[in-house]
């Protein structure tokens, strides 16, 4: 039987109306939409989320406060202490009241942002760089390098970050935001390294890596140009979230009296100092604690949004 238009079709042979079902060219490229990388996609998905905008605005605000605290208050956080105002309630010009020493709480909260944010950012940057470098080398080259690095990581992993930091901070001669960040990083890098290593292991066995190898691209260049960019997304997510946890860790250490020295204004120090008179005057403790919570929360929310946007499963568009 060959194609024969005159041939009688059996009764249940249905053919759709050609006008209703036009046949398009096989596999034509859709040129109507603008090209988009996966970063574009991530951005498009993020910008539709209210959570993203709320946390972005909060984070930006905290950063501006940290950089230029003078824009937000003209009251000095350290001078002009008036003992009669000790633990005093809010009054004109001092919306959050006074600390035990009679200093303006609002001014201290504003100036405290800098130390908290510096420690958080520094620690995150150090941890990410160290973790990504070590994790990718271990995952990519494998062998003894992987074995040694992974075991060293496990050792640090076994020590709780805050506990390790308490021990180390108590013996350090100088305590600045940088040393606090370094100490926190020392105990926190294995987490990022582990994530990076796992992610690199997945990416290095993909076909595009083999295709590049067959082109003659060198191993190290493949790592830099193909493996790391494809493996980095989970690290970005974790890093965003960990920024918040580093701020908490700094506050914890300062609260315990072994973080930043009491001369440095930080939310942790203020919480510590307000602790003694918590029962009679809770507000000097609650305001810096609230600032801390809001900052950390906004980084956690941002991490959540970033994860949703970068998760390849959530972004399957075939």
């Amino acid at each position, binding site marked *: 039987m060959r194609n024969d238009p005159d041939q009688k079709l059996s009764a*249940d042979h249905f053919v*759709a109306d050609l006008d209703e079902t036009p046949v398009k060219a096989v596999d034509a490229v859709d040129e109507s939409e603008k090209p988009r990388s996966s970063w574009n996609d991530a951005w498009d998905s993020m910008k539709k989320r209210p959570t993203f905008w709320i946390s972005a605005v909060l984070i930006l605000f905290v950063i501006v406060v940290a950089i230029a605290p003078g824009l937000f208050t003209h009251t000095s956080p350290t001078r002009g202490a008036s003992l009669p105002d000790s633990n005093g309630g809010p009054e004109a010009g001092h919306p959050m009241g006074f600390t035990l020493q009679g200093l303006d709480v609002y001014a201290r909260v504003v100036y405290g942002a800098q130390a908290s944010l510096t420690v958080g950012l520094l620690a995150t940057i150090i941890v990410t760089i160290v973790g990504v470098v070590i994790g990718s080398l271990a995952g990519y080259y494998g062998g003894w390098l992987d074995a040694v690095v992974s075991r060293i990581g496990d050792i640090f992993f076994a020590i709780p970050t805050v506990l390790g930091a308490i021990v180390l901070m108590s013996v350090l001669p100088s305590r600045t935001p940088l040393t606090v960040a370094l100490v926190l990083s020392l105990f926190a890098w294995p987490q990022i390294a582990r994530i990076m290593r796992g992610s690199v292991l997945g990416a290095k066995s993909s076909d595009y890596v083999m295709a590049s190898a*067959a082109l003659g691209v060198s191993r190290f260049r493949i790592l830099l140009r193909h493996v790391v960019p*494809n493996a980095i997304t989970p690290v970005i997510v974790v890093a965003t979230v960990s920024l918040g946890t580093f701020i908490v860790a700094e506050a914890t250490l300062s609260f315990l009296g072994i973080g930043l020295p009491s001369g440095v204004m930080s939310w942790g120090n203020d919480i510590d100092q307000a602790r003694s008179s918590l029962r009679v005057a809770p507000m000097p403790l609650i305001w810096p604690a609230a600032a801390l919570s809001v900052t950390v929360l906004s980084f956690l929310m941002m991490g959540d949004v970033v994860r949703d946007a970068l998760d390849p499963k959530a972004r399957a568009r075939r």
Partner: protein
Amino acid sequence: MTTTATTPEQSPRASSTAPLLEIKGLKIGFKTQAGYVDAVRGVDITMRQGESLAIVGESGSGKSTTATSIIDLLPGTGEVTGGQILFEGRDLTKVTPAEMQQIRGRDIGYVPQDPMSNLNPVWSIGFQVEEAIKANGVATGKQAVRARTIEVLKEAGLGDADQRLKQFPHQFSGGMRQRVLIGIGLSSRPKLLIADEPTSALDVTVQRRILDHLESLTRDYGTSVLFITHDLGLAAERAEKLVVMYKGRVVESGPSKEILANPQHPYTQRLVAAAPSLASRRIQSTIEPTHAHAGEIAAEGADDAELIARAHQREEAGKADAEYIRVDNLSKTYRIRQGGFKTTELKAVDDVSFAIPRGTTTALVGESGSGKSTVAKLVLQLESITSGTVKVGGQSVGALRGKELFDFRRRVQPVFQDPYGSLDPMYSVGNTIAEPLVTHGVGDRKSRQARVRELLEQVSLPVSTVNRYPSELSGGQRQRIAVARALALKPDVIVLDEAVSALDVLVQGQILDLLTDLQTELGLTYLFITHDLAVVRLIADNVAVMQKGRVVEAGTTDEIFAAPSKQYTRELLEAIPGAAFEFGR
């Protein structure tokens, strides 16, 4: 729209004239951020008791969506937005979830597509079958359930079922897992069985055995089977009626044989024409051969003088060209860790020899685990050779180091199977194609951009594709880009590892045409690795059939297809779905 008239000859198993399943004007949409996207746009299907029907279509045609909507298992945000699904007169789009649970499994069985991921790896096979039997109330009481489980598995073709109940899915091969899934699907003797690409993940010979078995089982039970498949040959062979879907609509439906012999809708005609079968011949390039080495391919129809001239050229090219790629006694052994310090050796490639003349295509055919892909990697020098030699253009590949190996990469390029995996998702198309040029320091920025545009044109993609990313392109388009990348350095040899296996039949046909044209134009030599003999017929000049690491039979494509001398080759050829079918083309 589909009329209900029937003739008894067409469906001898039909017991009544009332339809078992009647889908009327079914519409399904997927909710996205941009609103509803229609996946199925008004589908009508009628199935009678005991009838077998196949829905055929390319990926994205809505065939699986239609089938899963019957048992309310639409993925993600899918929703029936209109129409009716009448099963024995009852509208399934209106039943409650609890009622649907009763129907699912009991009245309508389902065999999913991928046997590798559809059995839970943490539970034993026996447990999973028992679960299905208990859930559908087929048997009650521990003893009865156990007995029924063994019965079900035996019926599904697992002879030693009673001993294997405690085994886990990873201890079963793909074919056996699919038998288990078929057993589960049929365990409660449903009236309708939906088989969603039941064998597309399996080797052809396994596929054939499983489908034969499924056919005899459903015939015995009088079960109606609804096949979902992309394979026209399989549909024609296994189903009495065909429904061809395209972009969410039914474009043609009716008796299988009639549709294949006399397709009416342009889309069906296209599908039928593109379906690879044994009847087809080697694709001939439409391009005038300009390269001397391409002479052999298009020798047909040339006049004498031309033929003599070409023969002369061929002679000049000499013996080196007749054995441009030469593989001698090639072996590859892997050491596999057995736990502890024990290792065992696995011979992936065992004493393989063949030669490929310049400008021709040799196909390596075999089922999964036959070692064909390992041969490809050895020829590409992506794995080290255990023993034997591979020579390309007289140069021994295994000994290449450093600069020599780097230069060798320019001459031999791969195209891999998975068009979703072989392109870096973070690289734009332009950067992907330019990567070989950058790596080998060819030209400056501007000349590289020009070359990328030229390559895109060569693989028939619009130049505007340059700035796009792989995720925006279809499988076929990605494979074109992979071909363009492979061509960038003007290689002599391209190793194609299952390069068209993941593509829809029409797209597959397009890529094969493209490869043939490029071969004629550029005088390329192809080593074509595939499991699909029907594709071999279309593209290869010579074939080597591999089984368990060895070449069992080799020869020209015509010889092997006309008169296979080995039992294994015959089995492979017979197992091609629709092999014995007369296509109207």
